[in-house]
């Protein structure tokens, strides 16, 4: 249960309970999880701290997922694994790849699936 120990994860979702569930789940695997409820504050978090993984909702008020990612500085992106977690995917695979998002986790997500992906991606 320590597969994610030492990994810093930033979860962005306007649904607080989603954030909390993800935080609880990922924390169980040893990850250090910060939560943001909108894109603006996520950018602020990213500029102040260093994260290994970003898991963001797509549809959010004020600043949605794709906007958030496009606003992340290139330097920060280089060492950041970015994922979307959405219940309703209106992005094409092309768009997703252009943005540099590695995977979309469909809601309701399965923690095992997420873990498998993250572990694999972190190993690379």
């Amino acid at each position, binding site marked *: *249960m320590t597969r994610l120990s030492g990994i810093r994860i930033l979860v962005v979702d306007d*649904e607080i*309970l*989603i954030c909390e*569930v*993800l935080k*609880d*789940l990922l924390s*169980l695997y040893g990850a250090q999880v910060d939560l943001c409820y909108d894109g603006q504050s996520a950018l602020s978090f990213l500029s102040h701290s260093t994260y290994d993984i970003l898991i963001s909702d797509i*549809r959010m008020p004020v600043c949605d997922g794709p906007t958030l990612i496009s606003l992340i500085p290139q330097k920060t992106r280089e060492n950041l694994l970015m994922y979307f977690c*959405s*219940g*309703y*995917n*209106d*992005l*094409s*695979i*092309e768009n997703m790849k252009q943005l540099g998002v590695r995977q979309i986790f*469909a*809601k*309701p*997500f*399965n*923690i095992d699936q997420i873990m498998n992906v993250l572990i694999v991606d972190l190993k690379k």
Partner: protein
Amino acid sequence: MILFRFFKNIKHYLWRSQFVLLFGTIVSLLIAIYFYQEVSSKEKKIVQEQISKVEHDFGKIFEIFTHPLEGIKSSIHFAKFNFNHNDFQLAAESRNYFKNFEGAIGFGFIRKIDSESVDQYVEHQKFLRPDFQLKWIDEKSQNHDIFVIEMVEPIATNKPAVGLVVSSEERRRNAAVESMKSGQPIVSLPIQLVQLQQSEPGFLLYLPIYQTPTTPPSEEQRLSQLYGWAYTPLRLSAIIKYIQTQNPSLTIQGIRIIQNENELSVYQKDGLIESNNNINISLQAYGKNWSMQLKTERLNMWSAKIKATIIFLLSFMTTLILFYALRHQENVLRFNSELIKRTKSEVDQAVQIYSEQKLFLQKVIDNIPAMVGYWDKNYRNVLANNAYYNFFGLTPQQINKMTIQDLLGDRYFKNEPYVEAVLKGHEQSFERELMTPQGKRQTLAKYLPDIVDGEVIGFFVVVFDVTEIRELQEIERKQQEKLNYQSRLTTLGEMAGGIAHEINNPIAIIKGKAQLLQLEMDLNLKDHPQVNSMKNHLQKIDQTVDRISSIIKGMRSLSRNADEDVMEYGSVNDMIDEVISVMREKIKLSGVHLSLDKNIAENTTLFCNKTQLQQVLLNLLSNSLYEVALLSTEKWIKIVVQNENKHLKISVIDSGKGVSAEVENKMMNPFFTTKPPGQGTGLGLSLSQNIIQKHGGSLDYSLLDGHTAFSIKIPIRQFSGKVA
């Protein structure tokens, strides 16, 4: 008869007037000529009679004077030549000659005296009548016999004649000689009588007296035996007066004596001699050839001519009237004939046009792909096209004038309400299935009233074959239904999309919490006696959430989604392998044998939405697995991949024995499922079909060698890009 035929047969009635004119003119002429001839011959006859009378009278007048001369002659003979002038005087008085023979100046005796006896004679006479002396007229011939008027009575008026030597003048002598020679009474040429003071022509009429009482037969005897002459001097005027009195209708214009080819005018009427209406007659009387010019009142040929002309004109006018009447009639006839001819040609032309148009009309209606007919208000057929009469197996001649009752026979009762209604002016329309040589056909019959001036005079029947239309309509209706259905599904999908977004977060939370609880139980409640039971509950929650999720996901996929529409070239082998790898474990656990039969090239690609296509394959495999797992023996699933007519065909065949017809009809409907409640969403096949159709392909169920088979067929597009 010939004429009648001439008039009747040949169109020569137009020449009747001319014929009548010609004929009438000829007839008029003939009538006029006939009349003229009749009249003129009558006239001529009368004239001829008059001429005969004149001739008779002319002869008679000398005859009248001859009688007293005969008397003198007989007296002389009776006296045996022994009488003197006193005896003669007595005889004359006793006969009262002058009263009876008006016109004669007197009657006398002329003696012939030898030349030797002249002096002796004169002496003897002087003895008897001292004043007697010979009177010579022209010449004094002593050597010839002389003819001397010895006696003449009445002496009072004839004194100058006594002793006149008539032989001393040619005309008197010639007549005397002629009379002596012929023994006939002879009249002299006109002379101036000595008794008359005025110049007035007269004649001497001689009757010879011979020594024998009868006239000697030969001239020689007559010359030798002549004793003398009885004679009478006659006035011309008296003769003319006599003839004129006897023939009052005639006027004597002139009298001539023709002698030795010379004409000697005896009498010429005073004043103008009218040349018209003159007739010349010639006759011989008393030794002279007489020629008379007479004017007759009767011989007026002009009147005959005028009458004939009038008759001709009357007749001709009648002809003309007839001619004009006929000509008028002819003109009317000619006009009528022209009119008839023209009308006839117009009618012919019209008839031709009519028949051409009728043929054309028949051709037109024959080519109408419907049965067309027309019935009059007495239910009789007037018109039918070939489709119509062929349907009833009749010829156009047979159907014509046939009643609709006879045509339809027992079937009529079905059409009767429509027929009655259309004859009341209401258009009728009804559909019926008819048996035709082409088989069962759906037909639409229309009865259209033919209304003229508000009255129904008949109705049109048009029967269309609407089989194709109805079939097409049915197809269209089905397509429309399908479209509507698609549209409803799309709406449902879009709704689901909205719902999904709203519901996924809550269920993600539930699922997340359930997983969290499980993880926490694993970490903290490992030894709790109820941990497995609790974990089981949590798994059920997890699975239920997945069910909700899959329902929503399925519903979402019914809508068009930009992401899901992404099509790309993908390797068919990879796709199938991925699906099998996902399912392999589950299949193996179910004790089912899975085989793969790939008959395609290793690098075969398909232009598709890989995820969706895999979803379909998964769905089909899941369905098969579910069904096969229920079987007790022979559990297998076979995947066959092959090329077929530029299509890629992927068949999932299992050992099942197919589905019931009821299921087959409904299995593609959304939310239809044969699984127990809670085990299937009923969206699988519906979604799969939807996806395959979006790929331009088809998803079909069939029974292959008695086994259930679902086949996907997707058209293969030529690869033109990179493999994703």
